[in-house]
């Protein structure tokens, strides 16, 4: 029987790095002056943008894992895909929530239909909620991995739609500031972009920690499932003492 999975040693380093980077990020953000027109609401940027960037990263890893399973049938790729998408869904929810809070403070409304990115992000969120629901609905690991890989691959099409919605549609949301075709013409002041970069790195480190922990949990789940299956298989009894299924 295989050994109980142990937590990867690097997890502790990732945990410490996450705490330190989040602390430094928080310190850096506390020194940023209020924005001219938005006031204190602009500080939501330091949670909103890192969460959406990390959500893109998570969903990107999710689709790579899905393709890894579809093309090469790597079992670990399915686990990585599922773990990344789970965290991606939480980060997408955080993105939506901080965006809505910002909207309430600056536009006086929680929701605006003319904001194409807000609407497309909500669609993305529900699409991946469906992915998680599909995962919960299937017990067999092979069937679950295949069908979720298909859905994970198709669903990822929505990510570029969300990102480029601000360029493709007339929208209230501001244009792309960080990931844009003309990256040399960035429009953000350096006193904002420095702390923002720090918080993005902190969020990515936190994501690395969370995915490591989620994968450890997944491996432990697999171990328990296999151990339970082995324990319930009466190999010896079946070979040495065959019995009729019908009651005597």
């Amino acid at each position, binding site marked *: 029987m295989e050994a109980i999975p142990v937590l990867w040693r690097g997890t502790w380093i990732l945990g410490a790095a996450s705490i330190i980077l989040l602390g430094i990020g928080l310190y850096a953000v506390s020194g940023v002056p209020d924005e001219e027109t938005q006031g204190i609401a602009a500080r939501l940027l330091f949670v909103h943008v890192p969460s959406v960037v990390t959500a893109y990263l998570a969903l990107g890893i999710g689709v790579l894992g899905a393709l890894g399973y*579809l093309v090469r049938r790597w079992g670990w790729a399915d686990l990585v895909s599922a773990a990344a998408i789970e965290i991606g869904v939480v980060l997408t929810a955080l993105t939506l929530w901080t965006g809505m809070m910002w909207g309430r403070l600056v536009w006086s409304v929680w929701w605006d239909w003319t904001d194409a990115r807000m609407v497309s992000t909500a*669609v*993305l969120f*529900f*699409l991946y*909620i*469906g*992915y998680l*629901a*599909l995962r919960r*609905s*299937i*017990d*067999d690991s*092979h*069937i679950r991995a*295949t*069908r979720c890989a*298909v*859905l994970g*691959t*198709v*669903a990822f099409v*929505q990510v570029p*739609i969300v990102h480029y919605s601000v360029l493709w549609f007339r929208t209230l949301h501001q244009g792309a500031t960080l990931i844009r075709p003309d990256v040399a013409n960035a429009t953000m002041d350096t006193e904002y972009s420095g702390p923002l970069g720090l918080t993005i790195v902190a969020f990515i480190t936190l994501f690395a920690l969370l995915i490591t922990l989620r994968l450890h949990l997944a491996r432990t789940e697999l171990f328990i499932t296999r151990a339970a299956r082995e324990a319930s298989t009466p190999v010896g009894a079946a070979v040495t003492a065959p019995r009729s299924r019908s009651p005597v």
Partner: protein
Amino acid sequence: MKGPGLLPQVAWVIRKNLAIERRSGETFWMVTPFAALALMLAPLAISTDTALLRRIGPGMLWLVLVLFGLGVALRPSAGESRSVRDLAALCGLDPAARFLGNSLGAAILLIAVTLILTPVMIVLYAPGGNPAWGWLILLAGTGAVSLGLLGSLIGAVVTGLRTRTSLAPLLALPLAVPVLVATTRGTESALSRRSSISWVLLLVAMDLALAVVGVLLAGTLDNTPPTD
């Protein structure tokens, strides 16, 4: 011995699905009247203001078509039992042919439903106009094919699952948003006698993309048997 090619197999699946529909009459005697009733009741819930109804008419038509049409498109693949799939595999039916057959079979039914519901919408929501019928027919065709392909793809993902009736709409609806937007905007243009070419082209591009994805993944999905 070499079996029939892809196209005859697709035609066989379409004929099979249309024969099932002819016997049950589910789409024409249940889904279509229900969808027409939904179109009729919506103004009672929203407003009977003529100007507002004219504005929301195309959106209501395609929202109803997406909601009801996805049900029609999901049915053949999501409802297939293990024995039916095993029999199809034993007969040498190509999974890609089954996917295309199910999609196009659903699309044919949905084109007919759309062509019935569009005049209903015009009478109830936008009377007195002179719409561009050519564009409306093209939108019905391309939109129905999109819904058929999407429904068959998601149907194959949820086939045999105990939770498929709740899960399938949750998975299919967010993916149907581009279809909803394109068909609604296209219908708005057609009602005011403007060209809907950009929306029709967008729908054709989506149809092609969905067909390629579905054909490529049909074999993979077919190798995972239903859990029933």
